[in-house]
């Protein structure tokens, strides 16, 4: 299995800071904004961004939720391994709020489609934006594009983009894994 590093720890650090600044540019003090980490992997990124916003830019009271999309997916019963749910943790109504979905890799766009349906169970947001660390270009099945992106990559279908976080006892790293060879 060939493995190629796309982003190292330092590059990820710089990108996260840039993304945090871009969020501040559009959302100022975050009083009307809700950040939503998409379970399971978007939550690491969301937590990290909130930490930067709080510690480095002194923004307080950021509302952060976790959204699980398992029950909203369109590939239920179309895949070999059964889906396993993670927890959803949204303790506020998103009515009239600016919602930012946060996920690690944007691929087909189907997870985000499911998230758009799932969030409706918590109210009608004013608008929804999408932040991703990695945008896999030319692989979309649906007309969904990110508003904030860390790095855009062109990857062929056999290749997988893997994001590793130090929270999982690994180093921060993004790499491309070729499952074919």
């Amino acid at each position: 299995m060939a493995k190629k590093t796309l982003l190292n720890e330092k590059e990820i650090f710089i990108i996260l800071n840039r993304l945090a600044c871009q969020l501040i540019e559009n959302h100022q003090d975050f009083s009307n904004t809700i950040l939503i980490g998409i379970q399971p992997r978007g939550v690491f990124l969301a937590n990290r961004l909130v930490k930067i916003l709080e510690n480095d830019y002194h923004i307080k009271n950021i509302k952060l939720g976790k959204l699980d999309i398992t029950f909203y997916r369109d590939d239920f019963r179309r895949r070999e391994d059964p889906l396993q749910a993670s927890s959803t943790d949204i303790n506020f109504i998103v009515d009239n709020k600016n919602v930012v979905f946060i996920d690690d890799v944007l691929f087909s766009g189907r997870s985000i489609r499911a998230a758009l349906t799932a969030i409706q169970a918590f109210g009608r947001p004013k608008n929804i934006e999408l932040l991703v660390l990695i945008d896999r270009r030319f692989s979309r099945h649906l007309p969904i594009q990110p508003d904030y992106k860390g790095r855009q990559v062109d990857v062929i279908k056999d290749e997988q983009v893997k994001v590793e976080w130090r929270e999982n006892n690994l180093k921060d790293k993004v790499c491309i894994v070729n499952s074919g060879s």
Partner: protein
Amino acid sequence: MAKLSVSHLLGIKHLNLEDINLIFNTADHFKEVINRPIKKVPSLRDITIANLFFENSTRTKLSFELAEKRLSADIINFSAGQSSVKKGESLIDTANNILSMKVDIIVMRHPNEGAGDFLAKHVNARIINAGDGAHEHPTQALLDSFSIREKLGEVKGKKIVIIGDILHSRVALSNIYALQLQGAEVKLCGPTTLIPKYITKLGVSYEKNLRKALEWCDVANVLRVQHERMDIKYFPSVREYTQLFGINKELLNSINKEIIIMHPGPINRGVELTSDVADSKQSIILNQVENGVAIRMAVIYLLAQQINRD
């Protein structure tokens, strides 16, 4: 990966511990879903479920219906009272007729033991047993254990006494299997006439004295006296039953620890439980009802996951 080891839910006897844990973990997520402002998920949009009730039921039927609706499944309901069963149609014919309308899952309650197993062998659909005679009532046992787990943290090592009409109870049998599988200790209590003769072969103990049983246990699961199933007299009078096996506040307070009171419903108030016990803080009867929907959603979801459309 997580997958049920069975393709029908006919009884707890066929499940293993991993199945139960999978159902509980899934139910945890659904419990969060049913407490949202919008209590519905679209998972089962393309699934059709038939609820076949050959015997009266209010709670179980409503609970199943609500669980199915919360998962966005299409449902059809059937009650034996108003159907061709009265005209002499056989069970397989009834089921096959319903299946030709393209039904994926059948939820069935039937007065005869083993009706679910029989149907599972002969028709092409997933079967969920919602109670068959005095045999099993698996979703009730699952929601009972789920409620104990929610209240006490875990079921393993806990002491549970099942009180009352064990002989006519499918809830008792399913509960015994489920609790033992999870490593709990089970004791039965009730009039000797209502305790099946060889039940202790299942590894449960029997206690005739209600006070002693309550002093021993962490949880008391109180069953209803099923007058409608009693063709002969099993005890002299309801009054005597209440005096010997009815739980009242005075008795509960005189025990030195706080035990949990459960009841699968419907309660005969003043017979097996007095109102002040049924409505007390120690009672988790209404939590059981809420958990029933989450558990049934989990069971239906996990079985539906196995249906292959290709």
